């Protein structure tokens, strides 16, 4: 390599390093940014196919505000977008409860004014008792659910599938035909619950035990699958999988033999929420959006199209009973959901948890 090029390279790398170091210098804003009045364009962060297609149109008809939607692929992606952008870039973000809790703890979301969201009255009373945000002070819930075992009743012989240990130490009817989720917070769930530990533990010894048990279980797994587990049930390749309730319904829609059960050791409760990231200059209009999203027809759309349960009582009561019959897990009552352990933000403990999950995947 030419001396000049080498020197230029060193300069480039040094400049890059400086740029990285400089990027961390940004100060934290606090307090409320100057607000814009009147109809505005609200910038919304949400997941693909997660809101009704005509939502923007209807919202504009009702309030005059337009929506600009940015899709995120995961909660981590959403957090990265919020933290990486100038404050005020996003007015609304859809995030799952532990992430919402983390943002609240870090003072990165606006406090809500409940009087501006009259449709909160549409929610079940239980929806105001969620540990990540009691009283909906900083977030409104959009959908909720749990994780359990999704299984093919007709392909497991006389085996009764009702506990996490059925997946961890499967009998001959299940062996090699089990999949589990490999997303961090759910990867260790069967082991943690079987061992009687909290899903939110960051204790090194408890995590190690869960890692050991999960690695043992790998030999009887078909594989890890967090995307197409219900298709594997439909094809019969898998007969019992760890899966989210809503997604299990996608399997049930194709084969009525696919059932969902909350394991006897207990499971988790997740809630997808809406928050207003700190720095929004459209707080008033964002409240209007939250109120709009809590109108029964929007919750009903989620239940009918995403097959997720919603904390919106008015929406759930408007559902066709045939839907609840076809997808029995849609009828799990809020009280049962709240008996499950709510996933919490792990704060500093997150890296120990992540490390444990990496060990299972690598082991």
């Amino acid at each position, binding site marked *: 390599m030419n001396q000049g*090029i080498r020197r*230029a*390279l060193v300069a*480039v*790398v*040094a400049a*890059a*390093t400086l740029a*990285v*170091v400089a990027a*961390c210098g940004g100060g934290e804003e606090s307090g409320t940014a100057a607000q814009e009045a009147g109809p505005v364009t609200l910038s919304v962060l949400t997941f693909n196919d997660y809101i009704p297609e005509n939502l923007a149109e209807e919202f504009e008809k009702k309030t005059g505000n337009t929506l600009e939607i940015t899709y995120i692929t*995961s909660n*981590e992606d959403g*957090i*990265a977008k919020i*933290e990486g952008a100038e404050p005020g870039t996003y007015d609304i973000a859809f995030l799952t409860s532990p*992430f919402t809790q*983390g943002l609240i703890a870090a003072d990165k979301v606006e406090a809500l004014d409940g009087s501006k969201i009259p449709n909160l009255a549409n929610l079940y009373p239980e929806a105001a008792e969620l540990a990540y945000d009691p009283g909906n002070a900083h977030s409104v819930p959009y959908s909720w659910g749990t994780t359990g075992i999704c299984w093919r009743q007709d392909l497991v012989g006389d085996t009764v599938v009702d506990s996490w240990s059925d997946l961890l130490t499967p009998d001959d009817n299940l062996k*090699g035909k089990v*999949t589990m989720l*490999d*997303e*961090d917070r759910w990867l260790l769930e069967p082991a943690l619950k079987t061992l009687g530990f909290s899903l939110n533990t960051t204790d090194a010894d408890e995590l190690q035990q869960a890692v050991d048990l999960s690695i043992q279980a*790998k030999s009887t*797994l*078909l*594989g*890890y*699958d967090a995307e197409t587990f219900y298709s594997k049930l439909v*094809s*019969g*390749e898998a007969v019992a999988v760890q899966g989210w309730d809503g997604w299990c319904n996608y399997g049930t829609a194709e084969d009525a033999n696919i059932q969902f059960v909350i394991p006897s050791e207990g499971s988790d409760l997740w809630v997808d929420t809406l928050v207003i990231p700190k720095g929004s200059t459209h707080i008033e209009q964002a409240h209007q959006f939250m109120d709009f999203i809590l109108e029964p027809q929007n919750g009903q759309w989620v239940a009918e199209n995403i097959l997720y349960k919603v904390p919106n009582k008015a929406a759930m009561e408007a559902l066709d009973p045939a839907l609840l019959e076809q997808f029995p897990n849609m009828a799990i009552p809020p009280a049962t959901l709240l008996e499950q352990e709510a996933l919490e933000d*792990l*704060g*500093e403990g*997150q*890296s120990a948890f*992540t*490390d444990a*999950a*990496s*060990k299972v*995947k*690598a*082991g």
Partner: protein
Amino acid sequence: MPQQASPLPPSAAAAEGGSRRARLGALVLAPALVWWAIFLALPMGLVLATAFFKGGAYGAIIYEPTLRNLERALDPLYVGVLWHSVWLAMLTTAICLVLGYPAAVYIATRASARTRTLLLVLVILPFWTNFLIRTYAWIVLLNREGVVNGALEGLGIVDEPLSLLYNDAAVVLGLVYGYLPLMILPLYAAIERINPEVLEAATDLGARPLRALRTVMLPLIIPGIVAGCVFVFVPSLGNIPVPELLGGGRSEMIGNLINRQFLTTRDWPFGSMLVLALMVLLMALLVLQSFVLRRSRQVGVDG
């Protein structure tokens, strides 16, 4: 050949042409070099720098220098993942070489000109379809309800469907399938270039076929073999979709581990450290490659 019209004596013309050519060369190279600096050197510099910082919650990077990531990457668990990846990539390379060599020899020396074109098109044909889709196709073929199991059961060869998917063998199969053309093409190019008279001369001088192959043919195609091996080994080593889809995520390769650090767990510093480890390994491989090439050239000259 056109007549030389240069008024300068040949040596001066060469010198003048040489410096002009150097300047022209620099000019022609400049866009590529700028591209390289901005899109390769700069990001690599960032990766290197990031590897020595701390990871915070939700993907934040804490700008305190630390060796923690290095320590973590040296954990036997992660070294094991790297070793497992190297092993699978080596196995893939070896199988590709064994399968690719006869194919390349046939295409280069035995096939007629027309068949040769047809065969070469067939070799690169798979590249016209997305790699991910072709990998999914293997799932359709190999799953318990799949085409292969259906055929085996239909023929009465097996009673129970075989578990063909979600193991290391399926991963190697997918990798070999995906990268075999990258072995055949450089081998073909190397073999095709050999003047058949050279081999004939060796035989005429009394070399038995095996000796002619070993002392004449092999040194001549070593550059092709090495290039093919590198072309197959490198993308196999860092492969993400094949272990994910055909391995069922049960046995991770280094690419999956890195992918997860960046996309799922958002621990960029640790991910960067793993990238660094992979880069060191690949650089060692390239050094080995140039060493082998130099040796083979010497053998070619000395012999």
